């Protein structure tokens, strides 16, 4: 429609460029840009994130410094820092601990419990949420029971879990499972309830049957919420695991932390806490990474 105009436009503009002489702003320079130029450009493009990283490092260092000062001078101001271990003491116990196979065993066992409990929760919770979201009868049957059990904190299940399961290990995994199960189920259900009905109709008009609609529309449409559920579930899984280990464990990083208190090994308390923090952070980073892999259409935002 507008092609004649376009042609005329190029004809008009060609001589104009020629008149401008051999120097043209559009032509790229013959030599590739020097390393310095590239580095400068990279810096300009990434200035914001570099800034965030720099400030992040400074703030962590400041935290360590405040901790150091509070403990070296044994400050007592409402809160008592008299017995709190200093960062240096924690560092000393850390270097000792990483050569101690028992400490590593604590960590490995906690990770294994999380892996089993959380995976079971995901394997049961996600499909159950999808089915409940799709079939009204399943929702009507299961939802009331889930709603009654959901508000019970996983820690409150400890005595019941000990009665239910023959070994301590199984009951701890069960508690971890319970902790992550409900956030995963509820978020999957929520995702299913938000699926745009127009997309379902579009799929039907293109010849999709029930099974294909489930696989090609309902499931991918719910994925963002499923991953929200997995992230929240992972957080609650750690909370439940540590509580269960402190109460009934013989191994695990929660047990290690509690034992350190009983044995007056104060630096180990902080070491256990930091280990829990790092492990929790690591597992949520893993889930976020998996989410980005599974949902490439969202990572471009």
């Amino acid at each position, binding site marked *: 429609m507008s092609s004649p105009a376009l042609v005329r436009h190029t004809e008009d503009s060609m001589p104009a460029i020629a008149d401008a002489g051999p120097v043209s702003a559009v032509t790229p320079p013959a030599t590739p840009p020097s390393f310095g130029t590239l580095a400068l450009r990279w810096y300009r493009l990434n200035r914001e994130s570099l800034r965030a990283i720099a400030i992040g490092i400074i703030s962590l260092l400041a935290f360590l410094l405040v901790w150091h000062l509070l403990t070296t001078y044994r400050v007592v101001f409402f809160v008592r820092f008299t017995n709190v271990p200093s960062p240096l003491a924690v560092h000393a116990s850390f270097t000792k601990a990483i050569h101690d196979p028992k400490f590593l065993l604590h960590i490995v066992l906690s990770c294994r419990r999380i892996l089993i409990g959380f995976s079971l929760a995901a394997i049961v919770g996600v499909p159950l949420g999808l089915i409940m979201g799709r079939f009204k009868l399943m929702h009507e049957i299961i939802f009331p029971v889930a709603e009654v059990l959901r508000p019970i904190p996983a820690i409150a299940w400890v005595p019941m879990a000990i009665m239910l399961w023959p070994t301590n290990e199984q009951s701890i995994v069960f508690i971890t499972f319970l902790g992550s199960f409900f956030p995963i189920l509820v978020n999957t259900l929520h995702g299913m309830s938000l699926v745009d009905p127009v997309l379902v109709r*579009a*799929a039907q008009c293109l010849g999709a049957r029930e099974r294909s609609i489930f696989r090609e529309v309902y499931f991918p449409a719910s994925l963002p919420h499923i991953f929200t559920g997995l992230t929240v579930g992972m957080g609650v899984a750690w909370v439940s695991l540590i509580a269960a280990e402190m109460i009934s464990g013989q191994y695990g990083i929660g047990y290690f932390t509690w034992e350190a208190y009983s044995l007056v090994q104060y630096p180990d308390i902080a070491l256990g806490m930091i280990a829990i923090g790092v492990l929790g952070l690591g597992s949520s980073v893993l889930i976020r990474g998996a989410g980005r892999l599974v949902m490439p259409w969202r990572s471009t935002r």
Partner: protein
Amino acid sequence: MSEILPSEPKGHIEVKNFSLSYDSIEGPVQAVTDTQIHVKPGEFVSIVGPSGCGKSTLLNAVAGFLKPTTGIVTVDGERVNGPSAERGMVFQQYSLFPWKTVRENVEFGLKMRGMPRSQRERAARTLLGLAGLEAFEKHYPEKLSGGMKQRVGIVRALATGPKVLLLDEPFGALDAQTRVIMQQILTNMWQRLKISVLFVTHDIDEAIFLSDRVYCMTARPGSIKAEIPIPLERPRQQSMMMSSEFLALRRGLMSLIREESLKAMGGEINDMGMQGLSIELHGHSLADVI
């Protein structure tokens, strides 16, 4: 390509003695009553009417999403019982699958039919080329403009070689310039494919510019108020919209719709009421008077 370029026009839509009502607490509500429409094979027919008149309801019944309360909907003599790939649909909200790339969206219908991957990739590329979207095949819909999204929507609906194409205010969310270009792209595709089109819009110019015939619906409960043939020659150019012939058709349709729109607003505005808009304020501003 033979699948998407049928030689014979096909897709004879017939809607007979159609009515549709739904239940509410006050009893059944009539959305559409006593409606007959038809679209001949290869014909381009539009439905216009005031908002809420049931034109989308009618279209959804032809698509198979809604069951008529009375009457029957057939395509090529076969009764419509539910949605199928024989009746392609384009929605106002684009409704592309956000988790699929442009090409995967276009491939969807072919995949549902069980076409092998390499074959459907080739078909999708060809179709995207026709719509000028080849360069965007790997993009996710979110990155596209509204006009591009709707082009993908149209191409996706056409990919399976449907007998009829149903469009529910497809350009309603686009800006005026994009809309004009999209109308031309749609005309072009329709002329190549020779399939029947049923097009729902509230834009009178759009309906006249695109259609062979226009049905005008009454206010709720909707029924057909008038059927207007559009004798403008094809191919149609944008400049035709200024022709006296076009303007005469436009004037006729405008007055039909206006009558129904006023009715649809529950009589709260009649021509007497509209006169109030031009009351002389004798130099005072509106704020002073109030």
